[in-house]
């Protein structure tokens, strides 16, 4: 599929064009056959439909009135979709026409799945997941053979979903687009460890519509020579007492490049909301002029009664930490390896699948 270019990862509010961070352009590349493999218990309904039908169903759930182009009546924001995702509308348009495999997964109300749902995706796929009120599930997505993975989740009241997406693969490109709507007291945890692939595009859009809903996320990356990662997080707090927390931890080796846009958006009425976003970039190379890091930690707010915090820390391994480790007998090289493993490992550990964790550790070891 040559010459397919889509604009993705839009900053909700524009800034200086010369910084070239308002959005990114992605070339689509497909290298594997499409397939979605899963082993679901009988109680969970799945459907295979076309993209437009599935999307319409989910847009009806999220309420198409959500589309707004101004906040506070004056500030223009990007929101072209009725069901928000991190990458934006053009990704949807592409999926509608590309023949990706589609599946709708419906977890019934009050069902609590003890075993993790493991899903293997390949090529281009789009998952639509609905969790019924009070249900709970653990979903583990293995995206090793994926080119483009799109996931949409609608969480009904009180439901809890833990989802992890991992990928350890050296293919040329990987794109993943994520969108979720949380109703009252719903809770979503998302862990992503995206390694390998020369170019990775990752978009995550979360609409915390319901009161007391919670979103927690951790994402880890490692980029070396010729590799780029382009991430867009957009977390909207609408309901009261909503809480969001996320951590992005990454390592840039020689030649590594990465762009992270992360937005916490407090809408009027989200009183009692709390948002905490932290980014931590380890510049782990000795070569001068060899990294490319863009960080855009946005906070948008039109509600007084909130607590928002945003931190970004970009730098090398702290000499104090190295001294501490050396004083325990680790050589500087051993210390460096351990810290890089730890930097990413602290996210990888949250993935409830030992095999994936081992694959991640093995990959990192090979890279450093």
């Amino acid at each position: 599929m040559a010459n397919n270019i889509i604009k993705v990862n839009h900053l909700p509010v524009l800034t200086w064009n010369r910084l070239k961070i308002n959005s990114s352009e992605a070339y689509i590349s497909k290298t594997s056959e499409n397939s979605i493999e899963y082993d679901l218990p009988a109680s969970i309904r799945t459907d295979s439909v076309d993209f437009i039908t599935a999307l319409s169903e989910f847009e009806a759930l999220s309420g198409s009135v959500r589309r707004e182009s101004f906040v506070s009546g004056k500030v223009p924001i990007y929101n072209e979709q009725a069901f928000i995702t991190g990458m934006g509308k053009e990704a949807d348009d592409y999926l509608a026409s590309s023949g990706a495999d589609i599946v709708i997964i419906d977890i019934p109300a009050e069902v609590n799945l003890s075993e993790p749902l493991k899903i293997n995706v390949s090529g281009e796929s789009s998952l639509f997941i609905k969790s019924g009120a009070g249900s709970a599930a653990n979903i583990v997505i293995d995206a090793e053979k994926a080119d483009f993975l799109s996931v949409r989740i609608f969480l009904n009241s009180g439901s809890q979903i833990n989802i992890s997406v991992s990928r350890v693969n050296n293919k040329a490109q990987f794109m993943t687009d994520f969108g979720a709507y949380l109703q009252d007291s719903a809770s979503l945890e998302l862990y992503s460890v995206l390694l390998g692939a020369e170019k990775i595009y990752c978009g995550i859009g979360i609409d915390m519509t319901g009161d007391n809903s919670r979103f927690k996320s951790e994402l880890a990356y490692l980029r070396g020579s010729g590799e780029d990662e382009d991430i867009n997080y957009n977390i909207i707090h609408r309901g009261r007492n909503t809480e969001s927390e996320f951590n992005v931890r990454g390592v840039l080796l020689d030649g590594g490049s990465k762009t992270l846009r992360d937005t916490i958006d407090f809408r009027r009425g989200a009183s009692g909301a709390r948002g905490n976003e932290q980014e931590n970039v380890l510049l782990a190379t000795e070569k001068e002029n060899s990294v490319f890091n863009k960080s855009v930690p946005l906070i948008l707010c039109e509600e007084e009664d909130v607590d928002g915090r945003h931190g970004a820390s970009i730098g090398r391994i702290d000499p104090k930490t190295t001294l501490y480790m050396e004083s325990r007998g680790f050589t500087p090289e051993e210390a460096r390896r351990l810290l890089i493993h730890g930097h990413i490992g602290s996210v990888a550990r949250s993935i409830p699948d030992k095999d994936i964790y081992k694959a991640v550790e093995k990959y990192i070891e090979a890279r450093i």
Partner: protein
Amino acid sequence: MSNKLLKINKINVSAAIHGAVSNTIDSKTKTENERETGVKILHDLSLDINEGETHVLLGPNGAGKSTLGYTLIGSPEYVVTEGEIIFDGNDITHETADKRAKMGMFMSFQSPVDVPGITLNDFIKEAIRSRTGKSIPIFKYKRELAKTMEALSMDEKYAERDVNVGFSGGEKKKSEILQLLMLNPKFAILDETDSGLDVDAVRTVSAGIAEYQKRQNGALLIITHSTRILSSLKVDYTHIMINGHMAATGGPELVEEINQNGFKRFLNQN
């Protein structure tokens, strides 16, 4: 007869001025003599410590006590501009920290850093493996770790937590003493180990240090400006540091004198 474990011979220590690429390119390509230095902190300092001895270093705030500790463990923040440090027969004056640790040195830090992503359990296991060069039997290690944590009244859950991340001040200090007991060095520097601890924690940590004194003929340099932690420890020598100079050396009775009269007597000497 005790063997001289540590000989510090008339060292002068200054703060290092970091180049643009602090602690990386600069400290690797430049020898100690070439590094830029700033303020001199320690002046003509000498000190001998034998195997099994416990030395206490007291002095008012800003005396330079911690600087001595950091210099001994090999921190790149300080440069020895004159003099030498001999440890276990080796000249370690300009040696890197990890080499000193492998030779049997250890430091319990006043403000231990967070080491995210590595559990306390894994950290200690790796450190032991790194030092001894061989794999340790897992079962024996786990038993040893559990026993030691219990002796320090440390909840076993801390073993699976990332090193120092989210630990209270007291737990961090216990984590340092836990490492001391598990790594069993020949010589340990304890920098302000009792700062920020409540009464019970001081007692526990103190007991941990006493255990270290007993186990291996380990030597200790206890740096402190209060004497709480010393109450139940055997002390062989006491040193008073004022403004980067060694103002006095005496036996354990000096501790009691400081308790009664403070440092007044020594302040005028400089």
